[in-house]
């Protein structure tokens, strides 16, 4: 209970820091009306909008009223189209979830089995091949891979659409672009984790019991090797979202990543803040889930376990 309370308090502080940081950085970095309004607009109109959006108030007053509204669930109004920022963001969330979710599944489904195989056949041609491809996939920037895929599959072969969303065909290239570098990373982490586990004395014990290779890998090695992988997975969620911003821009995928790029470009403060809060919340939740899974896999970190040592 105490452990949960500490976790929640810590998450709350994290959220508050993110909100505050984003609020001030966005406002210090320039007047939104410069971006939103045409250059040749007269000062009276400019002042009208500044008053309308509350930008004429002192910064701390703005901050306070923003926080108060936020506590009541009001994320503010988009400067660009007068819509509720929260609705605007939520409308895009399913698309981003679809993209990042697919990419994550692809990367785990490819990366983990390849990493396990590479570790089992360490120093073989298979291992070398997998690792060479992994280095390639890992070091290729997202935007470059995306553009490369568009060149090959959309312009040359004309088999996949280069932008937009709506059909499964639209999903393939963005998800692959985003998933491949993570698949490469997961393959590398899985390999090193498995190599470490395979040399452990308990693997010899399993062999001395007469457990076959399949049983040794699935029931003895993988559960142990997955502990560090789960830890890394928690961190990778953040990178995945970062990657989604770029990938969505390259493929004109209408998710929150692309919304974020346009909103930042036009200083649409309420929308940017809403997205940042959402992302921070996702990260905090991802970390909490990681902790839960971690305890579920590894009895040594399970809450309430231990302390019975003779």
């Amino acid at each position: 209970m105490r452990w949960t309370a500490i976790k929640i308090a810590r998450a709350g502080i994290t959220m508050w820091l993110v909100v505050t940081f984003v609020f001030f950085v966005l406002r210090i970095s320039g007047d939104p009306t410069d971006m939103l309004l045409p250059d040749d607009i007269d000062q009276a109109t400019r002042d009208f909008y500044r008053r309308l959006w509350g930008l004429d108030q002192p910064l701390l007053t703005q901050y306070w009223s923003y926080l108060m509204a936020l506590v009541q669930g009001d994320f503010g109004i988009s400067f660009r189209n007068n819509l509720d920022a929260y609705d605007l963001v939520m409308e895009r969330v399913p698309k981003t979830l679809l993209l990042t979710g697919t990419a994550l599944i692809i990367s785990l489904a490819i990366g983990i089995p390849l990493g396990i195989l590479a570790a089992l056949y360490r120093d073989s041609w298979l291992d070398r091949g997998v690792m060479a491809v992994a280095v390639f996939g890992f070091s290729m920037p997202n935007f470059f891979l995306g553009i490369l895929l568009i060149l090959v599959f959309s312009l040359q072969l004309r088999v996949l659409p280069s932008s937009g969303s709506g059909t499964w065909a639209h999903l393939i290239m963005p998800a692959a672009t985003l998933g491949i570098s993570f698949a490469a990373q997961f393959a590398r982490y899985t390999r090193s984790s498995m190599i470490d586990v395979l040399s452990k004395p308990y693997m010899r014990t399993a062999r001395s019991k007469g457990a076959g290779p399949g049983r040794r890998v699935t029931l003895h090695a993988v559960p142990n090797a997955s502990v560090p992988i789960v830890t890394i997975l928690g961190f990778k969620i953040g990178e995945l979202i970062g990657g989604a911003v770029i990938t969505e821009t390259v493929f004109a995928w209408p998710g929150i990543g692309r919304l974020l790029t346009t909103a930042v470009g036009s200083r649409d403060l309420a929308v940017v803040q809403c997205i940042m809060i959402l992302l921070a919340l996702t990260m905090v939740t991802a970390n909490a889930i990681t902790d839960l899974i971690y305890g579920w896999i590894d009895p040594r970190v399970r809450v309430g376990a231990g302390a019975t040592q003779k």
Partner: protein
Amino acid sequence: MLLHVKDLAVTIDRRAKTPVRPVRGVSLTVDAGTTVAIVGESGCGKSMTCLAISGLLPARGRVSAGQIILQGQDLAALDAKSAMALRRASMASVFQDATGGLNPVRSIGWQIAEAVRLRVGATRAEAAKEAVRLLGRVGLPEPERRAREYPHQFSGGMNQRAMIALAIAGSPKLLIADEATTALDVTVQAQILDLIGDLRDSLGMGVIFVTHDLGLVAQYAEQIVVMYAGRVVERAETAALFAAPRHPYTQALLTSLPSAAKPAERLPTIEGVVPPIDALPPGCAFAPRCSRANHICSQEDPVLLGGVACHHIQVMA
């Protein structure tokens, strides 16, 4: 005759280097219900001998010569699968690091039940029950509760008991205890030795007990095999070996044992270290450390005759 090992040699292949032979012609025999102790310093090949017998050599290691005859069957003559089945049914090993030897993410009961199921093919429920019985058999209090716990919740001695319970699952004929008590406190060490002796007598197991501590095995083993640099240098009944050690190395080992009778004296040590297996001296491997070595010793490797391998011992034909 439960196990007969004849002229066993183990070769380890190395990347871009010449292979090494940590075991170079070892012979020994274990009968049901008796204990054979293999004694020697670190790096003498005693563990490699055991791993070869139990089929657990590292990936680059292989049996390069000799025979391992288990319950009348030559393991080398069997295909890999049958050899593994025979080993699984008739032998088990206990190692030094019991805590590391148990899987940290599996409960103690699960790990023992798995051994039961693999060796005798019981159902899940039967195996779980048998695991609890075995934990009780090795002297763990509250076996039912303990079976649900994990290795990190056990002390080193308790984990070694759990390892022994795991080893005796399915009543193997041969138990190999490789430095099984080395990492434990002296009192726990004695308890584990007693437990192994007790199980040997009640289950009629043959036991190979590997240790670097000659004093430890005096009262537990019927026969002692002293190894040096991958070879057997002396093999004798325990009483005979302690009464009249013949090989200079055995003599040196015995004089370096602490004795309760003369506590104040400074213990003699054997000068030098075991030569590395990839740089063995020519002739007798012990010669560079032997006070009696002469020119023959550094030229010819003595063979094991009448239980001892030394140029200085005249064996009656």
